């Protein structure tokens, strides 16, 4: 995914001289090609994220298309007010890339982990929020972002979980991607996943072949009529995300499901707690009970008849 991000960024910068990559002194390896090919379109703004976001708003006012890169613990969390007031209030076309979302920085502790960013960004008017699950989704999200003419937050989580899709995608902003229909008429249950948990959901579907699988690369806007159809065609919807169970994908799906009153939504994600321990990414997933085995057990618990 990271190679795709770098090459897509270079492609956007080459095709539009108004694209400026602003970084808060992060992402050394990611920008090697951009700095070599278009050095004037790369600006290291220093370790000053608040100023970086407000300056991006100013740069957009005079015709630039800033892409603001930092870790998601800082963009959007540290600079939420700058995003709200300077960028979103004026509907300025600034793209925010929040890298390392979830537990990517598993060894570093809570300062570098981000599990609340979807909740806070989706509450800000004008802001589009995307959470691509593999490199094909990321590539499409970046195309949608650059043409949106609106502020966009793209959440990048663990980038080496493998592809779920096998070819380029052309989904519209807000669309769910239906990868597999549920096959067991007795249970009719579907996993809906976003970001890094899409690959995990695909593995869980191999373990439970009767489950349906849906990807949600765009969280705001999101296609409500597709969610309503999903609710009408399933007994159980299980949402899966490397994000708090409050305010993320699970909440978004539940909000719509509540208006349909057919399917039951079970939210799998991060409970209301910080990481207690340091360790590998897999270790942290296990600590928060969103590793493969914990999720497998949770799904069996929620759908007792499932094989």
């Amino acid at each position, binding site marked *: 995914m990271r190679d795709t991000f770098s090459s897509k960024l270079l492609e956007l910068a080459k095709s539009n001289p108004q694209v400026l990559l602003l970084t808060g002194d992060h992402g050394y390896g990611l920008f090697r090609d951009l700095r070599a090919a278009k050095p004037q379109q790369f600006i290291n703004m220093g370790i*000053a994220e608040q100023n970086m976001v407000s300056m991006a708003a100013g740069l957009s*006012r005079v015709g*630039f298309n800033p892409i603001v890169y930092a870790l998601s613990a800082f963009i959007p969390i540290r600079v939420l007010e700058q995003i709200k007031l300077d960028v979103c209030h004026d509907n300025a076309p600034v793209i925010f890339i929040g890298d390392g979302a979830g537990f990517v920085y598993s060894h570093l502790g809570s300062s570098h982990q981000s599990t609340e960013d979807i909740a806070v960004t989706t509450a800000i008017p004008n802001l589009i929020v995307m959470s691509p699950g593999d490199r094909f989704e990321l590539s499409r999200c970046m195309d949608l972002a650059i043409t949106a003419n609106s502020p966009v937050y793209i959440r990048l989580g663990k980038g080496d979980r493998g592809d779920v899709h096998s070819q380029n995608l052309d989904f519209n902003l807000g669309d769910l991607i239906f990868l597999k229909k549920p096959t067991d008429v007795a249970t009719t249950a579907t996993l809906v996943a976003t970001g890094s948990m899409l690959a995990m959901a695909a593995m869980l579907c191999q373990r439970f072949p009767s489950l349906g699988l849906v990807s949600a690369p765009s969280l705001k806007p999101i296609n409500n009529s597709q969610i309503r159809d999903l609710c009408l065609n399933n007994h159980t919807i299980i949402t899966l995300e490397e994000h708090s169970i409050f305010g993320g994908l699970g909440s978004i799906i539940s909000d719509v499901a509540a208006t349909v009153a057919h399917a039951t939504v079970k939210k799998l994600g991060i409970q209301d707690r910080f990481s207690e321990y340091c360790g590998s990414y897999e270790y942290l997933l296990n600590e928060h009970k969103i590793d493969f085995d914990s999720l497998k057990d949770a799904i069996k618990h929620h759908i007792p008849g499932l094989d």
Partner: protein
Amino acid sequence: MNNPLIPKKIRKNILDMSFSGSTVHLGCSLCLVEILAVIYRNHLNYDFFDPLDPKRDFLILSKGHGVMAQYACMKELGWLDKKRLLNYFSDGSTLKGLADSSVPGIEVSSGSLGHGLSVGVGIAFGHHLQKVNQKTFIIVGDGELNEGVCWEAIQFAGHHQLQNLLIVVDKNNFQAMGATSEIINQDNLKNQIESFNFNVEDVDGHNEHELDQAIQGLFALRNNKPNCIVANTIKGKGISFMENNNDWHYLRLDQALYDSARSELEI
């Protein structure tokens, strides 16, 4: 330009708005009047008929609490009519209590402090990259400089040598709850900002000639440094019972006080 932006007229507009809307923030608006008048009258390049002309210089009021002073100037410029001005703070008014970018002529939504300075440095940096000859003027309060992000913006502007930028510090020595000397002392601003590679002038912020000369002199330097004026002002300037009385950050006018204040502004 036809309109000379007379300070007493601007102050009358401020009083009328404040009385009509029963508003706060009189003190921090009255101290800004000469700064705004001189910038609009003598230095800001803009299309008199189009506040959104892309070739304009940008004037950003980062201390959004003083927005009445800017609205009062915009009335003199013909950008706001009297009815709209007097509707400030009222139900359904688009002239909100603090500076709001939805009003043409107001560049940045501010009042949450420290935002306008960074947005303005972004605009100045954009013009610097584009190699166009447009200037950015940013007015910040001395209390506002408590915000750390201001210093992020100042260090960026100094490092990138934004000589198209002028920051005016409205140094009225007060902030919402008291004197800056008792909260966060700002008496060394000239040296502090100079140390970030700025040209800095210290002037009487109510002396139009001094302000005018300082702005002209700083932009003439063109020595690859951004510019700053520390404008020493009096909070509540022009109304004797409001001057240096910080209560007028929050107090509202009644009829008697309004009449008394208005009588001090007869030309």
